[in-house]
């Protein structure tokens, strides 16, 4: 899991800033946190969101802990949603991840404002949310199997204990 997170972090820092649509790029770190929640449930999602956000915060100039807080909350909500989700649908998790990404981006901007960051404006926020959701839609079919593979051992252990 740590290895996957390191690879995603490296991709986010070096690849994603150059892949922009309408000036905005995707957030693989957020997608990874939400995917963990989608695969492992709200509890794991919240912890993964916190750790992934914290790792990302080290490389940003925004307040330290803001990504950790937002990703944690976003992943928790996505984890809660997946509990009641229909299992046989293959597309539903992908669209949920995209929607979760957009929601978490909006939450991030609102919390950033609360913690003293300048407001970027609703028009831009929607644009960023839409682009990030689009990227999530594109990368979710990759992130879901990767997360399932990375978490296979721990999920089996949990099933056995239940």
């Amino acid at each position, binding site marked *: 899991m740590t290895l996957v997170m390191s690879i995603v972090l490296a991709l986010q820092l070096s690849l994603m800033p150059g*892949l922009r649509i309408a000036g905005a790029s995707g957030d693989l770190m957020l997608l990874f946190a939400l995917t963990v929640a989608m695969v492992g449930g709200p509890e794991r999602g919240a912890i993964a969101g*916190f750790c992934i956000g914290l790792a990302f915060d080290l490389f*940003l100039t925004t307040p330290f802990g803001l990504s950790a807080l937002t990703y944690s909350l976003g992943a928790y909500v996505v984890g809660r949603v997946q509990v009641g989700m229909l299992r046989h649908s293959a597309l539903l998790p992908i669209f949920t991840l995209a929607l979760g990404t957009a929601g978490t981006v909006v939450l991030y901007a609102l919390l950033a404002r609360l913690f003293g960051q300048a407001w970027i404006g609703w028009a831009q926020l929607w644009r960023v949310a839409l682009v990030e959701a689009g990227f999530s839609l594109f990368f979710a079919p990759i992130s879901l199997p990767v997360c399932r593979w990375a978490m296979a051992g721990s999920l089996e252990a949990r099933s056995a204990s239940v």
Partner: protein
Amino acid sequence: MSTTTRLLRTNRVLLTCVLASLTLLTLDARGNGLVTSTRSHVVDEMRPLTGSANSFFKPFQNTWNGLLHYGDIKKENEELRTELDALRGKQAQIQNELDRQLALERLVNVPNWLDQFKAPGSYTNAKVIGEGPSNFDQTAQIDKGSADGVKVGYPVVNGAGLVGRSESVTEHTSRVLLVTDSNFAAGVRDDLDPGTAKGRGLGQPMEVVSLDPATDTKPATAKVGDSLKTSGLDVSLFPGGIPVATVTKVREAAGGLELYVDAQPIVDLNRLDVVKVLGYNPPR
């Protein structure tokens, strides 16, 4: 484990994460040294890895940009060729005029905006090695840090004008807050009047607000095409005279007390390569 017990445990986990995040946010807001030094060390330690990854992914990024902006690039290329032809013709004439202007400036003692940073040690040349990894973080990473004399708050410029200011500095790298970041602000002036230029993020034009309601002639003075430079007033974070942006739209707020101006940054922030960090400490 019953559903209620599991729900309680999950909520407890979330609460712990939220409280831990809030604690970190509070520590950071209070300027805790541990947070700053951890950030600085991690960025420095990861530098070789991110540098290699940047080089590895550059072709992918170029391909992406080529595919996404093929039409724009082709059009821009044609425009640039036309412009280049025209510029070649004007070059000799401009050189003459420039020589004459420089001579006049020396005569009346008008400083060129970079003149005061010509001395060795008063500036540091740096290469841009990365862009901001988040959409809420309009920054660029440069390859010079505290070991090279860069400090937090130093103005960063290139040949065209103001790029931003150093926001966080590690030993060997710095992160530059670009003029388009929504947390960026600088005192600017056109020919006569001062105002405050603020970034609006994501390639948006900057917004300049004049906060001087007593100036009745304000609406008449700012016009599209005006060049805005740093004001260099007493409390300004930047030395005076650095080109910042060009006015693209003039709006007047209701009541006419404030003037809002949209201004396009003079520097092309999408193509930053080499920049100059000026060793400028604003007067306190």
